[in-house]
C-alpha cells in the first residue's frame, strides 16, 4: 500500500521564493489601499488576496503535487461557497 506522496520533497528555496512573493503582494495591497479608487480598491484587494491564497494552497499546502482528487474537492467546495454568496446577493442587491 502506498504510503502517500513522500516522493515529492519541496526544496527550502521554493518555499522561500513563495514567501518573498507573498510579502511583495502584501506590500502592494497595502500601498493600493492608500489610493482611493472606490470599489476598485476592494476588488484589487480581493484579487491580491486570492493570488496570495493560491500560492499558499498550491505550494505551502502542497496541493499542486497531490493527487488530482484533492484539487477536485477544493474546486467543488470553493464553487459551492461562491454560489452561496451569489445567490444571497440576489436578495440584497435587488432590495
Amino acid at each position, binding site marked *: 500500500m502506498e504510503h502517500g506522496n513522500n516522493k515529492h520533497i519541496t526544496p527550502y528555496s521554493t518555499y522561500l521564493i513563495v514567501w518573498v512573493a507573498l510579502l511583495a503582494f502584501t506590500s502592494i495591497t497595502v500601498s493600493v489601499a492608500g489610493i482611493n479608487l472606490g470599489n476598485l480598491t476592494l476588488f484589487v484587494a480581493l484579487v491580491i488576496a486570492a493570488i496570495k491564497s493560491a500560492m499558499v494552497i498550491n505550494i505551502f499546502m502542497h496541493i499542486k503535487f497531490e493527487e488530482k*482528487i484533492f484539487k477536485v474537492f477544493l474546486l*467543488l*467546495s470553493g464553487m*459551492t461557497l461562491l*454560489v*452561496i454568496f451569489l*445567490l*444571497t446577493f*440576489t*436578495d*440584497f*442587491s*435587488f*432590495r
Partner: protein
Amino acid sequence: MSIETLNHKSFFEEGTTKAKTGLRAWIFSTDHKRIGLMYFISMAFFFLVAVIIGILMRLELMAPGKTIMDAQTYNSLFTLHGVIMIFLFIVPGIPAVFGNFFLPIMIGAKDVAFPRLNLMSYWIYVIGAILAIVSLFMPGGPIDTGWTFYIPYSIRSNTNISLAIFAAFVLGFSSILTGLNFITTVHRMRAPGMGWFKMPLFVWATYATAWIQLIATPVVGITIVLVVLERLFGVGIFDPALGGDPILYQHLFWIYSHPAVYIMILPAMGVVSEIIPTFARRTIFGYRAIAMSSLAIAFVGYLVWAHHMFTSGMSDTARMVFSFLTFIVALPSGVKVFNWVATMYKGSIDPKPPFLWVMAFIFLFSIGGLTGLVLGALATDIHVHDTYFVVAHFHYVMFGGTGTIFFAALFYWFPKMFGRMYNIKLANLSVALFFIAFNTLYFPKFILGYMGMPRRYYDYLPQFAPLQFVSTIGSWLMLITIILIIYNLVHSLFRGEKPSVNPWGGVTLEWRTASPPPLENFHEIPTVIHEPYDFSQLKDMKYES
C-alpha cells in the same frame, strides 16, 4: 464463494475493546457495526420521546381552546418535537445507523477510514443530546421558538435558547465528522475490483449525503454561534435597531437547513434502490442515472434554500430565482422514481415487508414531493406559507419519505444485523396500518392549511375542529402501529427464527457474509467481479427463495 458459519464469532461476540463484555465493550468500541447499533438505540429512544410529544400535541389540538395544556407549554412542545425529530433522529438518521453498519460491508472494507473518529462522532451525538435534555430543566424552561430559532424571538425569549441551540451546534459536529469519515472511506477503502460504478446505490447515496453533511453543516454552526453571541453580548448582527437584518439570519439558517432535508432523503432513496432490485429480482434500471442523480440532488440542493423565505421580505428577484431553482431540483428526484418503476416492470415481485414499505414510500413521498411544487410556486406559496399545508408537506416527505424507509431498511437488514427473522404477517399488517394511520393523521392537514389554519397555533377557529379531530385519531392509529412494529422486532430479536444468510436473495456484499457479520465483516476480503445488481450471481450464493 461459500460462507463458513461454524466456529466463527459474530461482531456481538468479538469486539475491538479491551473489555470483552458489558457496557465498556460497546461504548469504547470502534467497530462500525457496534457504533451503528448504539446510534440506533439512542435514536430509537429519542424518536419515541418525540412521538409521545406529538401525541400530546395532537391531544391538545383535538378540540378548540385549552384541552390539556397551556399555550406556553404547547409552544415548547412543538419546538421540542421538531428539534428532537430533526436533530436527534432524522438528520443522523439512516447514515448513522445503516450507513455506519453497512457502508463498509457493501464496499468490501473492514471498517470505516477513521474508526476512532467514528466513535467520537457517536459520543459527540450523545453529549449534544444530553445538553438538549439539560436545557429542558434549567431555569427558564424549554425552548419555545420553533426548531427554526428565528430572530428576533430567539434573542428575546426568556427560555433556555443558548443551551438548546448550543446542543444543536454540538450535534452538528457529529454530523460533520460522520460525513468526513464516509467520504474518505468510499474513496480509500473499496475492495479490489470495486470500482466506482460497481458500488451499490446505497453507497452512492450515502456518499453524496456525506458531502452535504460536510459542507452545509458548518454554516448553521456559525449561525448558532452568532445567535448565542447576540444573546450574550448584544452584538447587533441581527438587530434591526443596530443595522442588523433578521432576513440575513433566515438566509444563513436555511443555507444549511435546506440541504439538511437532502441529508434526510438521499440515503432513504439509496435504500429504495437496494430494496427494489432485490424484491423484483431484476437489475436496477439506469444504474448510472440513479448514481449521478444522487450527486445532482446533493449539489442543486444547495441552490434552493430561500424557498423557505418567500414571504419574509426578500427581493422579488431573489424570489423568482429561487422558485425557478426549486423546480429544477425536482428533476433528479423524478429520474429516480421513473427508474425504480422501470426496474419493477416485468420483474418477479416478491411482496415481502421491505418491498411493501417501499411501495408506501413511493406513494407518500410522491404526494410530499408534488405538494412541494405548490409551495415552490410563488403565487400559491403566498397563500399556504406558514399554514398546515406546509406541516402536511414536510411530514409527507420527512416521515412518509425518510421515516417510512427507516422502517423499510430496518425490516430489510434486520436478519443480517441480528441473525433473526421477524413475523412476516405481522410486519405486513404493520405496513398496511401505517399507511392508513399516516394518511388519517396528515392528509387532513393539507385541507386545513388550504382552508387557512396557521401552523404552530395553540388554538383555532371552530371551522377547523372536525379535521383536527380526524388528525388526532390518526395519531392514535400511528401510535398503535409503532407499538406493533416494536413488539414484532423486539420479540423476534429473542425468539425469532434464524434465517439463512441471504433470506431475500440480495446480491450486494452484505448478503455474502454471515448473519450477524463477524468483527472485520468478512472472513476473506472479497474480490468484486460482477456488475452491480447482477442477479445471475445468486446461483453461487446461499439464499432462500
